């Protein structure tokens, strides 16, 4: 708002009619652009599953609050009822005051409107926070829940023991929903320079994902946004810039479908029938990636077949 007022004053200072007209046009365009950038481009159908994804968010710094404000603004036009948290939900101190400053305060508007947050843990999270009621983890490091035709699996990629793998296999096997969405902290595929893919986790998770038909995987850890080309038929998203940011960290490769590493960002997702629509939005409200993907056609035990996301 301050920005627009400033631009108006600049326009007033120029008295020449041509310049004034140009300045007015620029002002009108920038106002339209600012408003349109904050509108979701997703279908927002009545019966669809709508959610947001944030990762590496819990800094308590202004960029986290900016992202939270953008989410709250977009919630008015795209009423998502849940947020999946991709780990590193709280950085540094993990006291009750930190939980307020780095979680419940920035997302207060969303929490007040009944939006539920479902967390997975990152390497900077204190494991005791699995009992934090606003993260809905049911006191577990890994858990699953379903809504309509989607089942979400929140996993712990920090410490993957046999018990978790057995549980995951059993839950995936028994899942009857059309969409199987897994999320956790460490990305199995990544084109970011700092960490790169967590291959030790990939060799244990991926065979289960492929065998039991996981459709989409969300991860954080890298402080950027990235959408990867489907790997073994599975769609992979990284959204680890919900508060932290590593500017210029992406090193594009053949597996990069889209990426954004210039500002903090978050992801909105809508699943309607066999279609998943997504929109990645920056801290300033600019859509940095969007598209629709079709649910992969496959028989259980076969690799998924897909063409990847479409812009």
């Amino acid at each position, binding site marked *: 708002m301050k920005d627009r007022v400033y631009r108006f004053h600049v326009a007033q200072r120029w008295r020449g009619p041509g310049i004034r007209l140009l300045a007015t046009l620029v002002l009108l365009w920038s106002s339209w652009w600012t408003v349109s950038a904050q509108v979701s481009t997703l279908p927002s159908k009545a019966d669809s599953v709508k959610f947001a994804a944030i990762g590496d968010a819990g800094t308590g710094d202004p960029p986290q609050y900016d992202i939270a404000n953008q989410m709250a603004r977009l919630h008015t036009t795209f009423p998502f009822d849940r947020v999946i948290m991709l780990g590193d939900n709280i950085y*540094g101190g993990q006291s009750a005051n930190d939980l307020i400053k780095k979680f419940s305060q920035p997302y207060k508007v969303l929490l007040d409107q009944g939006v539920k947050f479902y967390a997975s843990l990152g*390497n*900077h999270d204190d494991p005791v926070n699995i009992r934090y009621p606003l993260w809905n983890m049911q006191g577990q490091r890994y858990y699953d829940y379903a809504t309509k035709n989607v089942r979400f699996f929140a996993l712990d*990629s920090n*410490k993957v023991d046999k018990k*978790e793998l057995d549980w995951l296999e059993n839950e995936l096997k028994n899942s009857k929903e059309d969409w199987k969405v897994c999320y956790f902290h460490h990305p199995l595929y990544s084109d970011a320079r700092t960490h*790169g893919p967590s291959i030790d986790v990939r060799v244990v998770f991926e065979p289960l994902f492929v065998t039991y038909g996981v459709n989409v995987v969300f991860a954080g850890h890298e402080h950027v946004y990235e959408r990867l080309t489907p790997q073994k038929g599975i769609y992979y998203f990284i959204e680890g810039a919900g508060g932290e940011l590593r500017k210029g960290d992406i090193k594009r490769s053949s597996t990069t479908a889209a990426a954004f590493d210039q500002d903090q960002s978050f992801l909105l997702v809508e699943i309607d029938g066999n279609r998943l629509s997504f929109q990645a939005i920056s801290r300033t409200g600019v859509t940095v990636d969007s598209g629709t993907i079709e649910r992969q056609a496959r028989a259980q035990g076969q690799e998924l077949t897909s063409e990847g996301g479409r812009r």
Partner: protein
Amino acid sequence: MSPDAPHPAHSEREHQPAVSRHRRIARRVSGFILDYLVALPIGCAAALLWANTLPESYYRFERVMNFPVNDIGIAFFFALITKEVAEATLPDGALHPWRRAALPAVAAIGGVVVSIATYLLFLQSAGEPMLMGGWPAAAAIDIPGSYVIVRLIFKRHPAVPFLLLLAISADAIGLVCVAVFQTGGDAQPVIGLALMAIAVGLAAGLRRGKVNSFWPYLLVPGTLSWFALFLGGVHPALALVPIIPFLPHARRDRGLFVEPTPQAHDTLTLFERWWRLPVEGVLLLFGLVNAGVPLHGLEAGVWALPVAGLVRPFGILAAAWLAIAAGLHVPHGFGWRDLLVVGCATSIGLVFALFFSTAVMPLGPVLLEMKLGALITIAGGGVAFVVARLLHVGRFAR
């Protein structure tokens, strides 16, 4: 070079003292240590290279080999360490009588407490709470590694047995912590205890029946002990630790890590001779399976174990000071500067820190951070040399 190969006369004269000195050192230090110094680094180097060039194939290999190496194979390495400790309790041994070990044991407690506290405080300040569950690994001291460093600095000196007793005590405390605080969720402690009682009873029976072959001890009580620990939720790599002391042994100890004489034919010595080569293979595989960690994108948690190791000497010094004030005696010719250098050498965690890490942490990035930290602790050897040089201790004495 073959000993029969012809040499120019002047060259022979020049090299003879060096060659004979190396031979003398090799004779004094057991083959076990020499094997350790060769096999483990080769395994570690190969693992680092493999994991950072073809990571997917490496982690698949690691996943397949983890159980046979870390849960079965390494049990024989711990058996050889236990053999050295068991022999040290014999007359002439470093642990005979037990009160000789009192000061190093107290110093070890100080070192363990300070290193675990440092480990936790470091993680707290670095914002890496996920690694806190790995605190028993902060107690680990690599016995052969620190022994080699102290031996190189001090040669023959009371610092050497002191270091060994200290390291053995610290690792024993760490193992107890792993066993008590890190038991598996599906543990069946009653069944485990019952099986262990049977295993120990059978080992005692074999000893009483004057069974001199080590195979029956390994195959029956050893196997039972492995299942007892496995079912009891304790790391089964320690299966032979309670069995080895029952093997018939010599009347007197030759010294820790000292090569047995060719005339020695007691069961414990035969066990060592038979298993030394296979354990060399196990150590190579242990390095290969456990040391493969990515060398990029390091998190702050990697430094927790090295920092804990570097601060350990202060805990050792403080505990030793308290123990001496309470009336315990320092070995003759062993001063505070020597103790500080010994403390620096104990900052090497290597195999024991790797083992403790895998015992307390399931696979994943957190374990990789701990493993890399365990590897970095090798630098403690260099620190010990630098401190020894600065303080003019051991080989650097004026």
